[in-house]
């Protein structure tokens, strides 16, 4: 079980939206984690690496320095995390984006590609979770 957190999630979403808008206003870039990470992996550092570093640093400071308790549980074990990572990496590369690039930035621009991509990955994730939890009874 995880607790339903409507206000914290709405506020968290608004912060993500703010970051997305600021990266466009200042750098003229889409804040898609897939695109930014792929750039860093293929040697384009600069603002991309700084953006990723900031995204890692904030949770580190919030939990270690401010001492906030953040719930975290990974229902999947290590072998399945590896499988999942490979599938996600291949999928987002062919699909041209993920939950941030398509799901937030693309949908906020009303991009047809992003709307379709979002429908595809939301449905396939839903079917996968249903299959794992209710058909085969967990991994």
């Amino acid at each position, binding site marked *: 079980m*995880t607790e339903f957190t409507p206000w914290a999630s709405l506020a968290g979403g608004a912060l993500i939206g*703010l970051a997305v808008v*600021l990266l466009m206003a200042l750098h003229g*870039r889409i804040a898609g*984690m897939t695109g930014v990470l792929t750039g860093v992996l293929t040697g384009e550092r600069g603002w991309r690496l700084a953006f990723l570093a900031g995204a890692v640093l904030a949770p580190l400071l919030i939990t270690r320095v401010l001492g906030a308790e953040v719930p975290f549980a990974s229902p999947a074990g290590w072998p399945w995390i590896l499988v999942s990572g490979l599938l996600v990496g291949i999928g987002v590369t062919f699909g041209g984006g993920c939950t941030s690039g398509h799901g937030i930035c693309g949908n906020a621009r009303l991009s047809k590609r992003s709307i379709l991509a979002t429908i595809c990955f939301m449905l396939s994730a839903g079917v996968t979770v249903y299959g794992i939890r209710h058909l085969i009874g967990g991994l």
Partner: protein
Amino acid sequence: MPVIAAALIGMIFGSGILLGGMANPAKVLNFFDVAGNWDPSLLFVMGGALAVGFIGYRLVLRRPRPVFDTRFHLPAKSTIDTSLIGGSILFGIGWGIAGFCPGGAIPGLGLLRPEPLLFLAAMSAGILIARRIRGAR
């Protein structure tokens, strides 16, 4: 200056993911478990982000150019193809298996737990493999 600004924007992004509960794979997976322990939080994260993003993009993209660049870098592609659909379906399957997506796992690294690191290592390998496959085509 662009680098410092990007780091600060990244911090806002990471804080949003953490506050929204999206660095927690159990919470993400429970969003999809409508038939079980449903937790609709992810919908509120998307809603909040889209509301701010939709209005903010409209204001920003009206301007002639971004502050640190000569132009806005918007995706040029507008065609629907099998790569978009197949890739997105594959991403959803991977996302549904462990509850990690790129935007959740990168801030998740800051929690200093092994799972996000493991996921990101495999995902990075997946990205590089897919780029080789695509390049060879």
